[in-house]
């Protein structure tokens, strides 16, 4: 650099020279010092589609890549009306999740751990990430798709902006990713669990899908039950999604399983009562509803309403 005249700029460069050696990122350093068992040294999902971003539209472009990889029909243009905010020239994280769900996919936010992100890539799922490429006090927010990594070369591989295959030092990636609060999301078909799945995060993600796409959510609950067979949330969710699809026998079976595994769950008894009632099993429905009321809890008024509904019915 020639012609750096102002003291401020010179100071910045001296500071930089002093710090140049010391910019390794904490999580990456840990992973490289001691590679976790079963994590491959390198992985890349070369088949991830690429949509070069137009204008400020890294959100729609990145989202389209993960949706298409998950087998859905999408283009940046088709996603513009779902996630782009013209006056902000960008896309909000919550809307990226919502648009993923609109494509019948589970939008699973990863834990803020580099290891989880790398394991997801090693398992073959490209991951949508938000980076702040600049500084906390001068942010430049950017969505990209992480598609691979190489611990030996200490590199992250991304579909980013107008670059089909961007490699970035893993440490730089971690710094830019940490400044977004480590935001990373996997868009998963409902029959596929994330590589590192937390029961509560996964079920929260499936429950958010239930209101939009009960059939996809029902599949997601089944997937959860295969992994966590006694999960109360998954059992009730399976019942609720079946109920929403008007599959009353399926709903009752799921609630019954919940009451047998978790006899203290008043919610399960209440929902079982409603499903039985609508199937015409009045006596069993009454017994279940009374049991829910006797267990009580914060939603006791709702249980009473269910019981009244059954008693009032002809």
């Amino acid at each position, binding site marked *: 650099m020639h012609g750096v005249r102002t003291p401020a700029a010179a100071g910045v460069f001296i500071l930089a020279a002093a710090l140049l050696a010391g910019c390794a990122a904490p999580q990456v350093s840990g992973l490289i010092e001691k590679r976790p068992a079963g994590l491959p040294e390198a992985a890349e999902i070369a088949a991830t589609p690429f949509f070069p971003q137009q204008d400020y539209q890294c959100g729609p472009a990145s989202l389209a890549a993960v949706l298409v990889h998950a087998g859905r029909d999408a283009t940046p243009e088709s996603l513009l009306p779902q996630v782009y905010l013209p006056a902000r020239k960008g896309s909000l994280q919550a809307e990226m999740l919502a648009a993923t769900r609109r494509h019948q996919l589970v939008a699973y936010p990863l834990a803020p751990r580099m290891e989880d992100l790398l394991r997801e890539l090693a398992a073959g799922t490209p991951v949508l990430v938000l980076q702040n490429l600049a500084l906390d006090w001068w942010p430049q927010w950017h969505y990209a798709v992480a598609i691979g990594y190489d611990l030996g070369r200490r590199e992250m591989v991304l579909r980013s902006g107008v670059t089909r295959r961007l490699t970035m030092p893993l440490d730089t990636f971690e710094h830019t990713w940490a400044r977004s609060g480590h935001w990373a999301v996997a868009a998963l078909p409902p029959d596929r669990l994330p590589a590192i799945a937390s029961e509560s995060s996964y079920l929260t993600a499936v429950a958010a899908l239930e209101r939009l796409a009960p059939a996809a959510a029902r599949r997601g609950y089944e997937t959860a039950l295969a992994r966590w067979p006694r999960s109360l949330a998954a059992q009730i969710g399976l019942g*609720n999604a079946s109920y929403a699809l008007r599959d009353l026998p399926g709903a009752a079976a799921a609630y019954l399983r919940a009451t047998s595994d978790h006899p203290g769950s008043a919610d399960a008894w209440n929902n079982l009562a409603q499903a039985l009632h609508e199937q015409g099993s009045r006596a069993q429905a009454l017994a279940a509803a009374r049991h829910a009321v006797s267990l009580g809890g914060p939603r006791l008024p709702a249980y009473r309403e269910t019981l009244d509904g059954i008693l009032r019915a002809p």
Partner: protein
Amino acid sequence: MTGRVRRVVAGLLIVCMGGLSAPLPALAGIVSTDTAVVGAERERLASLLERSEVQERLLVLGVDPANARARVAALSDAEAAQLAAQLDELPAGGDILVAAVLIFLVLLVTDMMGYTKIFPFTRSAR
């Protein structure tokens, strides 16, 4: 569309908000999964108000009414609450280019340190 017209349209939409929660199936007597999973039930009315607020903000930010409606409907209760409370402070990923000279220098240096990644031509220390 002028601000006033837009406000009237937004007002009308809010009036019509009764239909907004339509994607929620009518679950008479059923405790929702959200409630069972999270354990905390969001007040239904509060959630409706939050959703109408978010929808109005989306209109102001240039989203057309039909799309705004569908977008709000796709949010979970928790997301709607978050957007209602702080939409303007939340990051909107989209690459706003920075240009000021001092910022340029700072970012050049931090890029070289591998702390930021703004310029394609920088190569970080690692």
